[in-house]
Structures are given as C-alpha cells and as structure tokens.
C-alpha cells in the first residue's frame, strides 16, 4: 500500500514538474514570438536604435539547446532585413549578440555564414572570407 502510494506520488511529482517546464517553455516561446514581431516591425519602420535592445530581450531568454535554431532563425531574418535596408553595421551587431546567446557549434557556424554573407554584400570580401573560415572550422568540430 505504502509502495503504491509512493509510486503514485512520484508520478504526480514528475507530471507536475513536466507541466511546469512546459508552461515555462510556452511562456518563453510566447515572449520570443511577440518580441520577434516587434523587432521586425522596428526594422520595417527604420527605428534602428530600438532594434538591438528589442532583440537582446529574445537572446536573454533561456533557450534550451534543442531550440537554438529558433534563435538562429530570428537573428538571420532580422539581420537579412537590416541588410536589405543597407544597415550592415546593425546587422553584424545583431548577429554578434546572437553568437553570444547560442552554444552549439552548428548554430555558431550558421551565424558566421550569415555574417560572411552580409560582409560579401557590403563588399568586404576579406572579412567575409575570415567569417567563412571560422564557420568551416566550427563545422569541422561539431
């Protein structure tokens, strides 16, 4: 009887922890989703001074490694929009912030490639080469 009770209690505790974690993740995801929209709107409206602080709020959220690709996607989309508007400096700064927030080499390699692409668009071929070399180095050591 006591064993069954202990087992049931363990299951309940586990479920509660899982549900709490799910709830926490949902909250994080929801904030990131809204914040991404804000960042894209700020870029669209050319309010560049507010872009980086808004984006940093996303990077400050504690994303698990399995969800890092979402951070990478956000950084790529935002930097691509900035790059389309010829604001290459801010695009690079945003990618630098993203690089601080991600942990896996795959994510970092993708961000370095994006940096290389922006450099290439800006005519900085030498710098683009350096970023690409860094991306290749990271991909070779996953």
């Amino acid at each position, binding site marked *: 009887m006591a064993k069954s009770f202990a087992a049931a209690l363990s299951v309940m505790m586990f479920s509660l922890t899982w549900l709490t974690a799910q709830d926490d993740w949902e909250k994080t995801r929801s904030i990131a*989703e809204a914040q991404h929209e804000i960042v894209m709107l700020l870029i669209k409206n050319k309010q560049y001074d507010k872009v980086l602080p808004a984006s940093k709020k996303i990077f400050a959220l504690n994303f698990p490694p399995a969800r890092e690709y979402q951070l990478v996607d956000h950084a790529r989309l935002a930097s691509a929009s900035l790059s389309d508007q010829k604001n290459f400096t801010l695009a690079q700064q945003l990618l630098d912030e993203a690089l601080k927030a991600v942990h896996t080499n795959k994510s970092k390699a993708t961000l370095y490639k994006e940096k290389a692409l922006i450099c290439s668009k800006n005519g900085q071929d030498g710098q*683009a*080469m350096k970023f690409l070399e860094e991306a290749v180095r990271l991909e070779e050591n996953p």
Partner: protein
Amino acid sequence: MECRIYTESLTALMDGELAGEEVSTIRAHLLVCRSCDAEYRSLLYSYELVGKAQLIDSQPSAWTVIESRIRTPKEDRGFLRRFFFPNIWVPITAVAALVLFTSFLFLFVPSSDNHSVAMRQLLNKYVQERDQEFGRKGVLSTQGVGAVRTVQYNPFRETVPTPKGNPFKAE
C-alpha cells in the same frame, strides 16, 4: 728476355709480315713456351673477334665534314656571353628548374585565388540552402540572391495542428 722478343713479333707473325725463317723460329718457341703460346692464343682470339665485327661503310663525304669541323676553330663568343654563360647548359638547366618549380607551386600549393573560389562556392551553397529553407518556411526571396522578405513567418510560432473532421460533432 728471349720471350719479350718473341711476344713483340707475334702481331707481325699474325699479319704475315715475317720471313720464313723467323716464322719457324717463333713457332718452335711457341711449342716450348707456355706463356708465349698463351699470349699468341689471346691475340688470335682478339683477331677473330675483330674479324667478326661488321664494318659500317661510311660515306666519303662524312670524313670531309668531320675533318673540317675538327680544323675549324670555335666561333669567337662575346665577353658578356662568355662571362654569364660559359656553358650553354647552365641557362637551360636554370630555366628548366624554374619551370619545374613554378609548376610545383601551381599544382601543389593552394593559391589564395583557389581558396577564395572555394569560399565563394561555400557562400553560394549556403545562400542556396538558406533560400530553400526560408522558402519552405514561407519567407519569400524577392530582392535578389540572398535577400529575404519576412512575411508570415515567425521562428518562435508553434504550428498548431488542424483538427481532423468536425470538432463539434458528437462522438
């Protein structure tokens, strides 16, 4: 001492240049002297080998050409040429070595151009992959290569599965 006289006459004997008396004397000596007989047989063998060799008939004009080239002195080369190229093979070898070295550099040492081409290809591949990825996610590329237009895509949005059938239908 006696043997030395006979061995010196052996070639004359073989060429048939000796008188009848001398021939008899030498042949008598060869019968009693082993070393002279061995020398005679050795010479005889050499004569046979020479006799078997085929002679090449050369044209009479060839000798004239050879003789004229022997007698003609070398052309007088200039001071600079003599100073820098005392031997014609020196510049030829130097040029050959230079060509080989340059070929080695081109073939085995990756040049910065090749490197940049490889990096350019890598970047193009990344752009293609990214365009495909964003294309699948609904980010349209309308502003040239590598450009994206962010429409209806939020990387943090969870896709809610559409319920199958009618959700209000009674079980």
